[in-house]
Protein backbone atom coordinates (compact mmCIF):
# COMPACT_ATOMS: atom_id res chain seq x y z
CA UNK A 1 0.00 0.00 0.00
CA UNK A 2 1.31 3.47 -0.84
CA UNK A 3 2.26 5.76 2.02
CA UNK A 4 4.61 5.63 4.97
CA UNK A 5 3.48 4.44 8.38
CA UNK A 6 4.28 6.59 11.40
CA UNK A 7 3.08 6.84 14.98
CA UNK A 8 4.21 8.74 18.07
CA UNK A 9 6.46 5.89 19.22
CA UNK A 10 8.54 6.41 16.08
CA UNK A 11 9.28 10.05 16.87
CA UNK A 12 12.00 11.19 19.28
CA UNK A 13 12.23 14.91 20.05
CA UNK A 14 15.20 16.81 21.45
CA UNK A 15 17.22 13.65 21.50
CA UNK A 16 20.72 13.57 22.91
CA UNK A 17 22.96 11.09 21.12
CA UNK A 18 26.65 10.28 20.94
CA UNK A 19 27.05 10.13 17.20
CA UNK A 20 25.53 9.23 13.86
CA UNK A 21 25.35 5.50 14.46
CA UNK A 22 23.75 6.05 17.85
CA UNK A 23 20.78 7.94 16.40
CA UNK A 24 20.39 5.48 13.52
CA UNK A 25 20.37 2.51 15.89
CA UNK A 26 17.89 4.16 18.27
CA UNK A 27 15.43 4.92 15.51
CA UNK A 28 15.87 1.48 13.96
CA UNK A 29 15.19 -0.22 17.31
CA UNK A 30 11.87 1.63 17.54
CA UNK A 31 10.92 0.20 14.16
CA UNK A 32 12.15 -3.24 15.24
CA UNK A 33 9.97 -3.12 18.36
CA UNK A 34 6.95 -2.58 16.09
CA UNK A 35 7.96 -5.41 13.79
CA UNK A 36 8.29 -2.97 10.87
CA UNK A 37 11.78 -4.31 10.20
CA UNK A 38 13.78 -7.46 10.87
CA UNK A 39 17.05 -7.63 12.83
CA UNK A 40 19.14 -7.40 9.65
CA UNK A 41 17.79 -3.92 8.95
CA UNK A 42 20.07 -2.33 11.56
CA UNK A 43 23.47 -3.51 10.23
CA UNK A 44 22.22 -2.90 6.67
CA UNK A 45 21.26 0.70 7.26
CA UNK A 46 24.48 1.41 9.21
CA UNK A 47 26.63 -0.04 6.45
CA UNK A 48 24.70 1.87 3.84
CA UNK A 49 25.25 5.15 5.70
CA UNK A 50 28.97 4.46 5.86
CA UNK A 51 29.25 3.70 2.14
CA UNK A 52 26.73 6.23 0.89
CA UNK A 53 26.14 9.03 3.39
CA UNK A 54 22.71 10.67 3.42
CA UNK A 55 23.29 14.13 4.92
CA UNK A 56 21.57 16.92 2.98
CA UNK A 57 22.76 20.49 3.05
CA UNK A 58 19.23 21.86 3.23
CA UNK A 59 18.28 25.09 5.03
CA UNK A 60 18.30 23.06 8.22
CA UNK A 61 20.69 20.14 7.60
CA UNK A 62 18.91 16.79 7.71
CA UNK A 63 19.92 13.18 7.12
CA UNK A 64 17.77 10.52 5.51
CA UNK A 65 19.13 7.03 6.22
CA UNK A 66 16.97 4.61 4.29
CA UNK A 67 17.05 1.11 2.92
CA UNK A 68 14.76 -1.60 1.67
CA UNK A 69 16.59 -4.74 2.82
CA UNK A 70 15.13 -6.02 6.06
CA UNK A 71 12.08 -3.75 5.94
CA UNK A 72 8.67 -5.43 6.29
CA UNK A 73 6.40 -2.41 6.01
CA UNK A 74 7.21 1.07 4.67
CA UNK A 75 7.59 3.53 7.52
CA UNK A 76 9.05 6.83 8.58
CA UNK A 77 10.73 7.56 11.89
CA UNK A 78 12.07 10.93 13.01
CA UNK A 79 14.52 12.27 15.56
CA UNK A 80 15.12 15.94 16.25
CA UNK A 81 18.53 16.37 17.83
CA UNK A 82 19.38 18.52 20.81
CA UNK A 83 22.79 19.30 19.32
CA UNK A 84 23.98 18.79 15.74
CA UNK A 85 25.39 15.37 14.86
CA UNK A 86 27.88 14.89 12.01
CA UNK A 87 26.71 13.02 8.92
CA UNK A 88 28.53 12.74 5.60
CA UNK A 89 27.02 14.75 2.76
CA UNK A 90 25.12 12.83 0.11
CA UNK A 91 26.36 15.02 -2.72
CA UNK A 92 29.77 13.41 -2.83
CA UNK A 93 31.57 16.52 -1.63
CA UNK A 94 33.12 14.57 1.27
CA UNK A 95 31.85 17.31 3.59
CA UNK A 96 30.37 16.57 6.96
CA UNK A 97 27.17 18.30 7.98
CA UNK A 98 25.93 19.11 11.47
CA UNK A 99 22.52 17.47 11.15
CA UNK A 100 19.54 18.62 13.26
CA UNK A 101 16.82 16.23 12.11
CA UNK A 102 17.12 12.58 11.11
CA UNK A 103 14.39 11.01 8.99
CA UNK A 104 14.94 7.27 8.94
CA UNK A 105 12.93 5.37 6.36
CA UNK A 106 12.21 1.83 5.47
CA UNK A 107 10.78 1.48 2.00
CA UNK A 108 9.57 -1.85 0.69
CA UNK A 109 8.40 -0.75 -2.74
CA UNK A 110 9.88 2.54 -3.99
CA UNK A 111 7.71 2.59 -7.13
CA UNK A 112 4.60 2.93 -4.96
CA UNK A 113 6.21 5.63 -2.84
CA UNK A 114 7.13 8.11 -5.55
CA UNK A 115 4.54 10.66 -4.46
CA UNK A 116 5.51 10.65 -0.79
CA UNK A 117 9.20 10.80 -1.66
CA UNK A 118 8.60 13.78 -3.94
CA UNK A 119 6.65 15.58 -1.24
CA UNK A 120 9.41 14.87 1.19
CA UNK A 121 11.94 16.47 -1.08
CA UNK A 122 9.78 19.60 -1.12
CA UNK A 123 9.72 19.65 2.68
CA UNK A 124 13.53 19.53 2.76
CA UNK A 125 13.54 22.76 0.78
CA UNK A 126 11.25 24.57 3.23
CA UNK A 127 13.54 25.98 5.84
CA UNK A 128 10.68 27.29 7.99
CA UNK A 129 8.96 23.89 8.22
CA UNK A 130 12.18 22.26 9.34
CA UNK A 131 12.83 25.02 11.86
CA UNK A 132 9.34 24.56 13.26
CA UNK A 133 9.98 20.88 13.59
CA UNK A 134 13.15 21.44 15.63
CA UNK A 135 11.23 23.73 17.97
CA UNK A 136 8.61 21.12 18.86
CA UNK A 137 8.90 19.17 22.08
CA UNK A 138 5.96 16.82 21.68
CA UNK A 139 6.03 13.84 19.26
CA UNK A 140 2.30 14.17 18.55
CA UNK A 141 2.78 17.76 17.46
CA UNK A 142 5.64 16.69 15.22
CA UNK A 143 3.37 14.13 13.59
CA UNK A 144 0.64 16.74 13.09
CA UNK A 145 3.16 19.01 11.39
CA UNK A 146 4.40 16.18 9.16
CA UNK A 147 0.82 15.31 8.33
CA UNK A 148 0.11 18.85 7.11
CA UNK A 149 3.28 18.70 5.01
CA UNK A 150 2.89 15.22 3.59
CA UNK A 151 -0.89 14.78 3.59
CA UNK A 152 -2.39 11.39 2.89
CA UNK A 153 1.06 10.02 2.01
CA UNK A 154 1.66 9.65 5.73
CA UNK A 155 -0.33 6.88 7.39
CA UNK A 156 -0.65 7.72 11.05
CA UNK A 157 -1.24 4.97 13.57
Amino acid at each position, binding site marked *: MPGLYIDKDLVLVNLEVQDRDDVIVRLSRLALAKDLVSEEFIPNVLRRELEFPTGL*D*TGVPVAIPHIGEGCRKSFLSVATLKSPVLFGAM*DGSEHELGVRIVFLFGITNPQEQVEV*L*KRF*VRVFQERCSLERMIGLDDPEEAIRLLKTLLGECLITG
Partner: protein
Amino acid sequence: MTVRLVVACGGGIFTTTVVTDRIKEILWKEKIRFTITPAKITEIANLRDADLIVVTGKTTTRNANNIPVLIGMPLFTGVGAEEFTEQFLREVRRIEEEKKNANP
Protein backbone atom coordinates in the same frame (compact mmCIF):
# COMPACT_ATOMS: atom_id res chain seq x y z
CA MET B 1 15.95 8.64 -31.76
CA THR B 2 15.56 7.24 -28.27
CA VAL B 3 18.01 8.43 -25.64
CA ARG B 4 18.93 5.70 -23.17
CA LEU B 5 19.40 7.00 -19.65
CA VAL B 6 20.58 5.31 -16.50
CA VAL B 7 19.94 6.79 -13.05
CA ALA B 8 22.16 5.48 -10.27
CA CYS B 9 22.43 5.99 -6.52
CA GLY B 10 23.92 4.09 -3.60
CA GLY B 11 21.05 1.90 -2.53
CA GLY B 12 18.81 2.59 -5.48
CA ILE B 13 15.76 3.69 -3.53
CA PHE B 14 15.10 7.20 -2.45
CA THR B 15 17.13 9.48 -4.67
CA THR B 16 16.84 7.26 -7.74
CA THR B 17 13.08 7.18 -7.41
CA VAL B 18 12.73 10.93 -7.05
CA VAL B 19 15.32 11.88 -9.69
CA THR B 20 13.93 9.36 -12.21
CA ASP B 21 10.53 10.93 -11.78
CA ARG B 22 11.89 14.46 -12.28
CA ILE B 23 13.83 13.44 -15.39
CA LYS B 24 10.71 11.87 -16.88
CA GLU B 25 8.80 15.12 -16.33
CA ILE B 26 11.57 17.17 -17.96
CA LEU B 27 11.84 14.91 -21.01
CA TRP B 28 8.10 14.46 -21.52
CA LYS B 29 7.73 18.22 -21.52
CA GLU B 30 10.44 18.51 -24.17
CA LYS B 31 8.90 15.62 -26.16
CA ILE B 32 12.18 13.72 -26.17
CA ARG B 33 12.00 9.95 -26.59
CA PHE B 34 13.89 8.10 -23.90
CA THR B 35 14.24 4.98 -21.84
CA ILE B 36 15.31 5.17 -18.22
CA THR B 37 16.81 2.38 -16.13
CA PRO B 38 17.84 2.34 -12.45
CA ALA B 39 21.27 1.09 -11.44
CA LYS B 40 23.61 1.06 -8.48
CA ILE B 41 26.53 3.47 -8.32
CA THR B 42 28.91 0.53 -8.13
CA GLU B 43 27.69 -0.60 -11.57
CA ILE B 44 28.27 2.61 -13.50
CA ALA B 45 31.98 2.16 -14.23
CA ASN B 46 31.30 -0.74 -16.56
CA LEU B 47 27.88 0.08 -17.95
CA ARG B 48 27.24 -0.38 -21.66
CA ASP B 49 24.14 0.19 -23.74
CA ALA B 50 23.37 3.63 -22.32
CA ASP B 51 23.83 7.16 -23.67
CA LEU B 52 23.90 9.14 -20.46
CA ILE B 53 24.26 8.33 -16.77
CA VAL B 54 22.83 10.51 -14.00
CA VAL B 55 24.25 9.79 -10.56
CA THR B 56 22.58 10.93 -7.35
CA GLY B 57 25.15 10.54 -4.70
CA LYS B 58 28.77 10.21 -3.99
CA THR B 59 30.92 9.26 -6.94
CA THR B 60 34.05 10.23 -8.79
CA THR B 61 33.69 7.24 -11.06
CA ARG B 62 33.99 7.55 -14.80
CA ASN B 63 32.46 5.15 -17.23
CA ALA B 64 34.93 2.85 -18.98
CA ASN B 65 32.94 3.08 -22.22
CA ASN B 66 32.97 6.90 -22.28
CA ILE B 67 29.32 7.32 -21.43
CA PRO B 68 28.99 10.80 -19.87
CA VAL B 69 28.16 10.95 -16.16
CA LEU B 70 26.18 13.86 -14.68
CA ILE B 71 25.72 14.49 -10.96
CA GLY B 72 21.96 14.79 -10.52
CA MET B 73 21.74 15.89 -6.88
CA PRO B 74 20.20 19.26 -7.82
CA LEU B 75 17.07 17.47 -9.02
CA PHE B 76 16.80 15.94 -5.58
CA THR B 77 17.58 18.87 -3.30
CA GLY B 78 16.22 21.56 -5.63
CA VAL B 79 19.40 23.57 -5.09
CA GLY B 80 20.70 24.43 -8.58
CA ALA B 81 17.92 22.47 -10.27
CA GLU B 82 17.43 24.99 -13.09
CA GLU B 83 21.09 25.03 -14.03
CA PHE B 84 21.21 21.27 -13.91
CA THR B 85 18.11 20.95 -16.10
CA GLU B 86 19.67 23.22 -18.74
CA GLN B 87 22.94 21.30 -18.70
CA PHE B 88 21.08 18.00 -18.80
CA LEU B 89 18.91 19.01 -21.76
CA ARG B 90 21.94 20.28 -23.67
CA GLU B 91 23.58 16.92 -23.16
CA VAL B 92 20.45 14.97 -24.16
CA ARG B 93 20.01 17.06 -27.33
CA ARG B 94 23.65 16.58 -28.25
CA ILE B 95 23.21 12.81 -27.88
CA GLU B 96 20.04 12.89 -29.99
CA GLU B 97 21.87 14.80 -32.69
CA GLU B 98 24.81 12.40 -32.60
CA LYS B 99 22.56 9.39 -32.95
CA LYS B 100 20.67 10.99 -35.81
CA ASN B 101 23.93 11.60 -37.63
CA ALA B 102 25.13 8.07 -36.96
CA ASN B 103 21.92 6.48 -38.30
CA PRO B 104 20.39 8.90 -40.76
